[in-house]
């Protein structure tokens, strides 16, 4: 109880609440503008988060994370152009409801209600499940943590990338980047190219902004060459959903939120998978399945509840095991680490008030998102109209300012630009940027626990295969990496 009171004291500071609300608003704006992503929003505002004292910056990032997932539905409904991949399924019924049925306000209202429901539902699951899982994880030792890091990396590379081998290469390169600088175990200075700049390691923030924001800007410039901005729906009618609509979609909301929370827990999946699975299940169980695709309310509610429910679910492995599920949670985990909060079961013991502050912050972020969604939707609908030729130069400037302001270092800017250029080409070649970033994040954990395990066993590698939990994660990692080959074999069989 004392921990919860401490957490409330941390959150209910005017500046922190303002930061949370600002984060939600910026997140919605980023989500609703096609071409800007959740990762980009988080990466760009990452340096700004450290201007806040204590947990304030984390709250702002939580706001961006929740807001951006929801924001994607606005352009999906009004433009038939999803702001984020997680909102692709929302276009299937959201856009027909807005155009064919001429009820854009109703579509936005149902999506806002579903997003809020999904977010709150998954946060409650997080609050209930995470401490229990953390208790189990407290029994883990170095070999289990090493196996967990490998498992997290393997499942992400196998799911998030178009090619598993390229995903592995990206992840390995990320792990290598994490070795640059002073080795924590031996004190050796490794791969710094005789510069003092790399003594503290490859700076995470410039690489993050480079691969997630700057590379995305370059891709958007390429996409803009042929594209024409769609004419948006200008008039948005009443957005508060009716009681009849709420009753109609309630079961769908619960089902989709459960699906989204479960999918969110699995590293390497995400909102896009959750929204399609939720949509598919809603169609399968609906009495009006034939109306799906023509503006069916359940078809709007299901993907939005599903993709927003991912947010709470995705925090379960991050907070309890220190395993980020995707690029966005990797960024969030990076932010926690920079703030001195090392995700993992010990966090629940050593920094319990901070954990509760994150729980309450996520809950508040979803509620603020709902309030903003219902009250400011007409404003956000206008944000959708901002032309790309104005937006992109501003984003370019923000990548530079955000990178520079973190350390007041031009070397960081050069690193960001180099990462952005490289990220642009790697994206085109089918590499997963998330795998590289997660490699950097998990690199230190993997190496330290690998070395620590071998010290425990006097150099005997059997330690990784003689402990059941460790073996389970290593086998699961191997299976996830071999899944494409195994899948082909099963098909042939």
């Amino acid at each position, binding site marked *: 109880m004392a921990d919860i009171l401490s957490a409330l004291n941390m959150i209910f500071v005017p500046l922190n609440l303002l930061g949370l609300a600002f984060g939600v608003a910026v997140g919605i704006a980023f989500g609703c503008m096609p071409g800007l992503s959740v990762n980009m929003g988080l990466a760009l505002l990452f340096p700004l988060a450290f201007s806040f004292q204590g947990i304030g910056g984390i709250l702002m990032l939580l706001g961006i994370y929740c807001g951006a997932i929801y924001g994607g539905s606005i352009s999906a409904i009004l433009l038939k152009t999803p702001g984020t991949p997680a909102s692709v399924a929302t276009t299937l019924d959201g856009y027909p409801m807005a155009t064919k049925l001429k009820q854009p306000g109703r579509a936005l209202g149902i999506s806002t209600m579903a997003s809020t429901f999904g977010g709150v539902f998954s946060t409650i699951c997080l609050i209930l499940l995470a401490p229990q899982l953390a208790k189990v994880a407290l029994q883990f030792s170095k070999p289990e943590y090493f196996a967990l890091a490998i498992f997290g990396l393997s499942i992400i590379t196998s799911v998030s990338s178009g090619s598993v081998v390229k995903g592995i*290469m990206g992840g390995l390169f990320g792990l290598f980047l994490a070795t640059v600088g002073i080795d924590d175990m031996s004190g050796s200075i490794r791969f710094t190219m005789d510069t003092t700049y790399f003594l503290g390691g490859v700076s995470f923030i410039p690489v993050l902004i480079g691969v997630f924001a700057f590379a995305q800007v*370059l891709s958007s410039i390429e996409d803009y060459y042929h594209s024409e901005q769609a004419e948006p729906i200008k008039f948005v009618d009443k957005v508060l959903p009716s009681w009849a609509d709420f009753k109609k979609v309630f079961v769908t909301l619960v089902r989709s939120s459960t699906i989204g929370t479960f999918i969110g827990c699995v590293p390497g999946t995400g909102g896009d998978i959750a929204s399609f699975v939720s949509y598919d299940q809603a169609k399968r169980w609906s009495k009006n399945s034939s109306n799906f695709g023509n503006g069916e309310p359940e078809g709007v509610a299901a993907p939005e509840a599903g993709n927003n429910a991912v947010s709470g679910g995705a925090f379960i492995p991050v907070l309890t095991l220190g395993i980020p599920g995707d690029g966005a949670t990797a960024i969030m985990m990076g932010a926690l680490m920079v703030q001195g909060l090392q995700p993992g079961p010990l966090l629940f013991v050593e920094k319990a008030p901070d954990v509760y502050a994150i729980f309450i912050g996520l809950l508040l972020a979803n509620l603020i998102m709902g309030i903003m969604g219902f009250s400011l939707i007409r404003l956000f609908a206008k944000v959708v109209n901002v032309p790309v030729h104005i937006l992109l*130069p501003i984003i370019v400037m923000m990548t530079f300012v955000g990178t520079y302001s973190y350390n007041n270092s031009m070397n960081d800017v050069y690193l960001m630009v180099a990462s952005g250029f490289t990220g642009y080409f790697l994206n*085109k070649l089918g590499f997963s940027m998330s795998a590289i970033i997660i490699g950097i994040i998990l690199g230190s954990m993997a190496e330290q626990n690998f070395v620590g395990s071998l010290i425990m066993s006097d*150099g005997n590698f059997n330690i990784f295969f003689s402990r059941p939990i460790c073996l389970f994660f290593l086998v699961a990692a191997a299976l996830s990496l071999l899944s494409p080959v195994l899948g082909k074999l099963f098909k042939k069989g």
Partner: protein
Amino acid sequence: MKNMACCNFIVSILGMMIGAAIMMAASEFPLEFTENGPGPGFWPFALGTALTAAAVVLLGYTFSNKAELSKQLVALTLPANKRVYVMMVIVAVYCGLITVLGFYPASALLIPATMKLMDFHDKKIIALTTVGTIAFIYVIFTVLLHTQMPQSMFLE
């Protein structure tokens, strides 16, 4: 347009080269086991080996699926790509200009250059966007957050 088979071939070779370079660099550190565990070169050496192995697997995969991968096109030389390459040059010049002119004057050139690159020529909107963005950055970062933006080398 290049095909994915050709790109994969280049990526495999680069991957093998980077992997080998990591192994060479790591071998300059102790690799053997002591009472303090494996030497500081062991883990990076293992990563370099794994990267090289993954690159070899990619090469093998590319050869065995050459026909299928040749049909996948990768846009690298289209006019849209050339626009991106021009943007890269603009950004590289901007990085240099920040040192020479300082952050704000260089940014006052970058924003119009980017908008013109995107075939937008309305001078009024370009001027408004430039002034608005720079004013926003000045207020938030310089005034409120006290960030000292890079100054011209002639002023330092």
